[in-house]
């Protein structure tokens, strides 16, 4: 029965997908990601960014004369399904490499499979620092920031401010704890004066934050690190707005300034929330970024979010690496990818050779109403260059040796 169902699922999911070209004539990229449920807010941008870049590359004659094609598989946010899909793409679809997943557990599972199968795997949205950190290897690449990087970048920005008494609150799961620890541990080393008043952790999917907020206010901290992810981002901001929390005590959320958090709330999002993001469509105000935004809007009729940048650059790095390798070969692809630097809408991005982690800037800003858009944007944006907040190659080597 299971086999029949699986068979049907595979058949159905291949409907309407491009990429049925004969192997050898194309560069075939296999996407495993979550294409149903709330995570699609992020994953669809990755795929659309990739599609946009791939079409442009194909229009110019492709890579080494071959067109870039892709197939997608929905992992439904479940690691076991994701792993099955990845295996199926490698064995049956003969993909040249794999891309994907927003779920860190799925990414780590596929990464392990790719190490054994010797297939390159580019991670596009998972935020666990283990992927290119302690669990990193030759076949896995990180195309976005991770909790460790976000933590360091934020700690750098917060260390310049005069807050002393901190409170940590967040979603009680790995991402929440990882981001909170990432920020606070680095902050403590940068500014030994800071101290932790207390912590509160709520279950993932908590709907009513009011009791937590009143509790935090009663403790009178100077600053609150709020470690929420996914749906918790908007939920917490709404609670902050209705309780006036943001006007009483400043707080930080990773991705608080991102479009995916601010746009659904329209003009009613809380002002003065500190946040970090890898991409803002209105910053930096450069020619490259403008061109990217215009093209994305023309193609999809919406503003690009961080995922669009990751997907777009994934296609660029794939094309660039195969071009440099001179042939469609997985091992040569990896050699070519290591250390490659490409221009991106936010400046040059380097695929660091030592850990296969892309170096990209992090934007730190604070939410503010905008006369130009009907949602809030980030103001006072500080750009933290990638090299300033990435763990060093020596630190990565130490983590991997463990």
């Amino acid at each position, binding site marked *: 029965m299971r086999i029949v169902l699986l068979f049907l699922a595979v058949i159905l999911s291949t409907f309407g997908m491009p990429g049925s070209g004969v192997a050898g004539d194309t560069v075939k990229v296999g996407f495993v990601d979550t294409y149903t449920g709330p995570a699609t807010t992020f994953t669809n941008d990755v795929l659309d960014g990739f599609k946009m870049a791939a079409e442009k590359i194909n229009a110019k004659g492709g890579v080494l004369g071959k067109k870039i094609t892709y197939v997608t598989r929905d992992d439904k946010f479940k690691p076991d399904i994701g792993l099955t899909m990845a295996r199926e793409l490698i064995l049956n679809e003969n993909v040249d490499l794999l891309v994907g997943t927003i779920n860190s557990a799925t990414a780590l599972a596929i990464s392990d499979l790719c190490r054994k199968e010797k297939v390159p795997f580019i991670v596009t949205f998972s935020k666990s620092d283990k992927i290119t950190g302690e669990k990193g290897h030759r076949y896995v690449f990180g195309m976005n920031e991770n909790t460790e990087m976000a933590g360091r970048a934020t700690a750098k920005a917060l260390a310049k401010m005069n807050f002393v008494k901190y409170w940590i609150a967040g979603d009680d799961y790995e991402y929440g704890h990882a981001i909170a620890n990432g920020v606070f541990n680095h902050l403590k080393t940068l500014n030994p004066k800071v101290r932790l008043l207390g912590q*509160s952790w709520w279950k993932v999917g908590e709907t009513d934050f009011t*009791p937590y907020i009143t509790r935090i206010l009663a403790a009178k901290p100077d600053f609150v690190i709020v470690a929420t992810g996914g*749906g918790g981002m908007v939920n917490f901001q709404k609670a902050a707005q209705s309780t006036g929390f943001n006007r009483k005590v400043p707080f930080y959320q990773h991705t608080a300034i991102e479009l995916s958090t601010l746009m*659904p709330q329209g003009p009613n999002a809380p002002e003065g929330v500190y946040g970090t993001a890898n991409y803002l469509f209105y910053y930096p105000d450069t020619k490259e970024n403008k061109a990217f935004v215009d093209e994305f809007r023309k193609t999809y009729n919406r503003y690009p979010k961080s995922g669009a940048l990751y997907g777009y650059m994934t296609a660029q790095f794939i094309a660039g690496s195969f071009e440099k390798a001179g042939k469609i070969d997985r091992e040569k692809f990896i050699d070519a990818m290591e250390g490659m630097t490409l221009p991106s809408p936010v400046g040059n991005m380097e695929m660091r050779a030592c850990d296969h982690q892309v170096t990209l800037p992090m934007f730190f800003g604070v939410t503010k109403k905008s006369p130009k858009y009907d949602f809030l944007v980030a103001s006072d944006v500080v750009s933290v260059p990638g090299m300033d907040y990435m763990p060093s190659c020596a630190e990565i080597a130490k983590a991997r040796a463990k």
Partner: protein
Amino acid sequence: MDFAANLFSTGTLSQILVGLSRTTILFIVSSGMSLILGVLRIPNVAHGSLYMIGAFAAWTVIRFLGGGLFAFLAAMIVAPLLVAAIGFALERGFFSYLYEREHLMLLLLTFAFMLILGDLVKIVWGPEYRSVTVPPFFQGSAEIFGLPLPWYNLFLLLVGPCIAVFLWLVINRTNLGKIARAAAVDGEMVGAVGINVGWIFAFTFVLGSFLAGLGGALIAPMVNISLGMDHSLIMETFLIVIIGGLGNMWGALLGSLIFGLTQSLGILVWPQFGIAFPYLAAVAVLVVRPRGLLSSTW
């Protein structure tokens, strides 16, 4: 950790009020479930889905009418009515054929509807988050010893008792309510004296669904309306109904109070492990009174 000092701090009163406003939502949803459980004997797993539909429907109504207090109030009426209509279709179209069969069949059917309704919501409203803001009239917050209590939470504190009184009137003062109570105790006997039990069941199910929809509509401005909001609620609601006494409406009120207050006070006393308190309370209640606090109709 200085637990005692935390418990008698300036935050206690506002924490209790916040807990009570949470109790309101829990009570509205769990009383609907308890009602259906008591009279129809259906452990309605799809109850959470009805609550989710209520929230999504409220979003649609508020968007359609362009926001503001009027749109909000309209949503509070239209959304639960829509959910009640869905409940009516479910009861007459499906559940009513299975009353003679084993309870397990009914349980499976409600489980099936939880999945079906979840997917329907995805088809109708899409997989993205939806968000409505608190109507302008309720925006902002009152100050209690320097701590904020949103006006919307205070509004919920008013709604809760109104719903409780309304339910009490329906069940104790109307003929329909009296017959429903009788049907809960002995459905066969009620049928024997010439009353059409089927319609009593339909009425109860519709009322229960209405309450689920109302709960969803009321919580809509406070949360991210998203797929999956049904699952997180259904667990809590079941626990509340169980610790209160299966099918006993006042048990549902008591259970909601225990759940809402232990949560908010738990957060006050020990913020790091606040989420564990309601469940510990549920365990404690079940150890002392395994059949629930109040008498069960089962």
